[in-house]
């Protein structure tokens, strides 16, 4: 209980520090402005439905800015504590290294939650307003009126929060062992790219005519690298009345949570050996 309380206090201070960062304010304002004005970009829809374009635009902004925030903020908040020696003050108290690191993680994850909730709220406002405008036009033209599932958007927000949590935990793992902030950020961004391309390893594993070495590497990649693409079911959850394939969201949440826990465990194990 004491351990949980200490972790919460470190998370609280980390949250307060993180929301004061200029990067957070900048990305939040830019993301909110882009998501809020996404209707203005609908001429770039490449033939897709207007609402689908607006939703995809918002989802893309959320992932791009959210990933950037998760990687940079996680590394920065950990290195700020180490470089400024505030970590010395905290770790000289009856605070374990795991409590310290988990406190940092939960502080960052809370900020990412705020980011996701704000952007999703703006996107929901834009989608619902535009759907209400398009409905009479569609009915007049005899087409099926567009619909926006608010509950689906809430589930999507949860999925994105877990996805950004995985990225933050992965970056924390890299930063716990790395010597420099820059290395942590570059390695974190490459890991995000790897997560987006993880399906390539899955495809390779599914092919029957693959050599043992390639198969082993693909098998390892599918286990070690989180599949960040599996969270891209926003269209199905928000716009399609049939919704996402049964169990897709649950499966993504379960796999994501396992990866998140695994990266946190590895980060704590690595940080325990680090000399402060």
């Amino acid at each position, binding site marked *: 209980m004491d351990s949980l309380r200490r972790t919460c206090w470190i998370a609280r201070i980390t949250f307060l520090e993180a929301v004061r960062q200029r990067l957070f304010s900048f990305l939040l304002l830019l993301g909110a402005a882009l998501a809020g004005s996404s209707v203005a970009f609908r001429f770039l829809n490449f033939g897709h439905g207007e609402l689908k374009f607006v939703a995809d635009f918002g989802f893309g902004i959320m992932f791009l800015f959210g990933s950037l925030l998760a990687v940079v903020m996680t590394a920065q908040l950990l290195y700020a504590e180490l470089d400024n*020696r505030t970590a010395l*003050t*905290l770790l*000289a*108290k009856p*605070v374990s290294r795991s409590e310290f690191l988990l406190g940092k993680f939960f502080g960052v994850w809370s900020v990412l939650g705020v980011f996701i909730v704000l952007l999703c709220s703006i996107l929901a406002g834009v989608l619902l307003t535009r759907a209400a405008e398009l409905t009479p036009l569609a009915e007049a033209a005899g087409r099926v009126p567009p619909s926006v599932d608010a509950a689906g958007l809430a589930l999507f927000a949860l999925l994105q929060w877990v996805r950004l949590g995985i990225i933050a935990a992965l970056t924390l793992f890299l930063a716990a062992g790395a010597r420099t902030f820059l290395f942590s950020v570059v390695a974190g961004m490459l890991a995000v790219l790897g997560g987006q391309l993880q399906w390539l390893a899955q495809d390779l594993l599914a092919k029957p005519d693959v050599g043992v070495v390639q198969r082993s590497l693909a098998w390892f990649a599918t286990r070690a690298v989180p599949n960040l693409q599996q969270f891209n079911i926003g269209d199905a959850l928000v716009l399609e009345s049939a919704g996402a394939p049964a169990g897709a969201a649950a499966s993504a949440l379960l796999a994501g949570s396992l990866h998140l826990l695994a990266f946190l465990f590895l980060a704590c194990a690595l940080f325990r050996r680090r*000399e*402060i």
Partner: protein
Amino acid sequence: MKSAVSIRNLTKDFSVGMRGLKLRAVDDVSIEMPSGQVFGLLGPNGCGKSTTLKIALGLVKQTSGTTSILGDEAASTEARRRTGYLPEAPYFHRFLTGRELVRYCARLSGVSEERLDEAVGRALDLAAMSAAADRAVGTYSKGMLQRIGLAQAVVHDPELVILDEPTAGVDPVGSAAIGGMIAEMRRQGRTVVLCSHLLGQVEQVCDRIAIMDRGRVVLQGAVDEVLTGRDRHLIEVSALTPAAEAAAREAIARAGAVVVGVSRPRRTLEELFRELVTGSKDA
């Protein structure tokens, strides 16, 4: 005598560069720091003082040797619960006020919610920071940062307080104030370990000292013992006339002693400064 900190045959090697060359920062150090006293750990920069203290606090792992704090293994949570630490050149979250910072540290140190306000108030009083406690830490001067650091180190009423360069960058008046706080902690029965370059202050406040050089302890013992070891004595006289001096020399020679020299005692610059400057804004 019961030891608050016991360091035995402590050695620490750091790996340097890509080839992992070993740099020995602490070399077979053994020190006993008795309870209830102020212990001074002295030495030039890079001599291994801070590394020794960090090992004692479990922040760095030793290569060999053992360290215990108040009878517990040094790196243990129990040992850290009973220890307060002020790192060298402390830096704290700038957006917190001094009071918020000390409350935060108190909570992390296990002070209960019922005792929190009283403990924070007492620590701020000891560090003479009550008046500035509701200002943001980012607005504090160097001396105030050291003092708020002292407050966070003692807020949980530790038996042992480790202060690493508490007077670094602080003006002489502020240093004297910190010296007074250390003396107050000793009066309260705490053990204080002090790392400092201000030898005059160490001499004033410490009961025992150890001097380190190149990772080794080159001298340790009670301050009085190590400083009065030489066969020299000082008699201070006022209104000394040439005739009185000649008579005194003759009397001393008759008694079989030798006058080695007669000189006028000088005040130290620090004494003069403190005599002339009664206080500074952030003292």
